[in-house]
């Protein structure tokens, strides 16, 4: 068990897999916004791929470890201290019994993943331990004073050496145009423009600031019947300002999607923070 002392702006329990296959219940996939980072953190402590960790947005997290534990951090490089002593990211770190783990604010990126050897062992809901903020499924958003259970140590040892490649951060997201690019007067404007991530941002998605993506004459006054959307969909409401959907997107959306970010690049998108610039490159 670990005892949460501070959460920063937003901390949730997440696993990599989420809840695929439940669209017939109106349930979306959810899971880590940057699955790659959580998978890496899990690997560094010898956890299996299903293990849940903490997704910590913009640092500011602190927890007490009544018993000793092994942790690893990946994703946004929030400075780590254990009882005030600096620890490393991207490698397993031992937290002695009675020690306090604390994270500062990451200088880059948005979401830091904390894996604890054994995993955060909250109850699974529909096969996943992830908090889905839009569906209200899974454990509650992590709060100060929460006691989070840690599972038994996995069979695999903590790896002696592991590769922790730095995340890509070139501000480019690869995108497939469509399914509704034909609704827009100039879909090329979407690809040519430099967009700025706004602070209208959460696990559902983030809004972009940039030129207005106007509708084509054919579709100017047409309402789209709601249709299925996936993670990475760039949906454009009548305001012409796109929203990029992340892990907790709704199952269906009622506005046209001009393009969909490649699945692997949605992990990159999950690390963009307000004020950052981003471009979309067609593949």
């Amino acid at each position, binding site marked *: 068990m670990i005892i949460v002392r501070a959460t920063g702006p937003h901390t949730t329990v997440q696993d990599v897999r989420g809840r695929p296959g439940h*669209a*017939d*219940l*109106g349930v979306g996939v959810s899971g880590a916004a940057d699955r790659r980072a959580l998978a890496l953190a899990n690997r560094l402590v010898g956890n299996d791929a299903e293990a849940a960790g903490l997704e910590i947005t913009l640092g500011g997290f602190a927890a007490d470890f009544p018993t000793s534990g092994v942790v690893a951090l990946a994703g946004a490089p929030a400075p780590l201290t254990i009882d005030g002593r600096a620890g490393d990211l991207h490698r397993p770190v031992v937290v002695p019994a009675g020690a306090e783990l604390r994270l500062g604010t990451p200088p880059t990126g948005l979401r830091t993943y904390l894996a604890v050897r054994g995993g955060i062992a909250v109850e699974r*809901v*529909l096969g996943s331990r992830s908090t889905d903020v839009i569906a209200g499924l899974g454990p509650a958003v992590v709060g100060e004073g929460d006691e989070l259970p840690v599972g038994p140590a996995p069979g695999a040892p903590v790896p002696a050496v592991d590769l922790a490649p730095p995340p890509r951060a070139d501000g480019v997201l690869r995108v497939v145009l469509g399914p509704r690019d034909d609704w827009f007067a100039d879909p090329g404007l979407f690809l040519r423009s430099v967009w700025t991530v706004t602070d209208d941002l959460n696990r559902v998605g983030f809004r972009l600031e940039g030129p207005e993506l106007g509708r084509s004459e054919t579709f100017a006054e047409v309402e789209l019947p709601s*249709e*299925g959307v*996936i993670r990475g969909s760039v949906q454009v409401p009548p305001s012409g300002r796109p929203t990029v959907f992340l892990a907790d997107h709704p*199952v269906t959306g009622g506005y046209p999607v001009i393009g969909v970010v490649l699945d692997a690049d949605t992990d990159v998108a999950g690390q963009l923070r307000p004020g950052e610039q981003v471009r979309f490159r067609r593949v």
Partner: protein
Amino acid sequence: MTRTLRPCGDTGLLVELDALDDVLALHADLAADPPSGTVDLVPAARTVLIRVGSGVDLAAVAADVRAREPEPVVAREGSDVVEIAVTYDGEDLDDVAGHTGLTTEEVVAAHTDQTWTVAFAGFTPGFGYLVGVDDRLHVPRRESSRTRVPAGAVGLAGEFSGVYPRESPGGWQLIGRTDHVLWDLDRDPPAVLRPGTRVRFVRS
């Protein structure tokens, strides 16, 4: 059945159809025998989204979808019908009467006289989009949506009726409310209303 295939990133394919009946038929066909690599099927009003795993060949999925000849889905007579008891005192009952040219009493009669079928789920866990057998109750959404619609609210929008499983924002025209619990994680499955489920509304 004409179908237009539209790209949806590198893990999705959106199949667009002419009518909701075609959606139900294709969804049933795909659900019975999903294309190789399928992770999720998301039926909606005019589309079925096929979501596949990373690295799955979408061209093969597209070829599979094009080759299918789905049978129309017929409501199975005698199959279970979920009965939902409703108190018809919704705030928008008068507006619905205005839109449809019916009296409020006739609106309630139209709602209770027909068997509804869940076409698809979405919006929030346990929310089913119900279609009836006639178009008497087709009404537009409210011009402005409510920030809070209570759990159990029964509404109409477009060609659909639905029941809000929990409190949420919403723009549907509200005609009544029910105590029927539509989403309960302690049940398996947790949702009462799943694609294909038939529903009768009765006055409580």
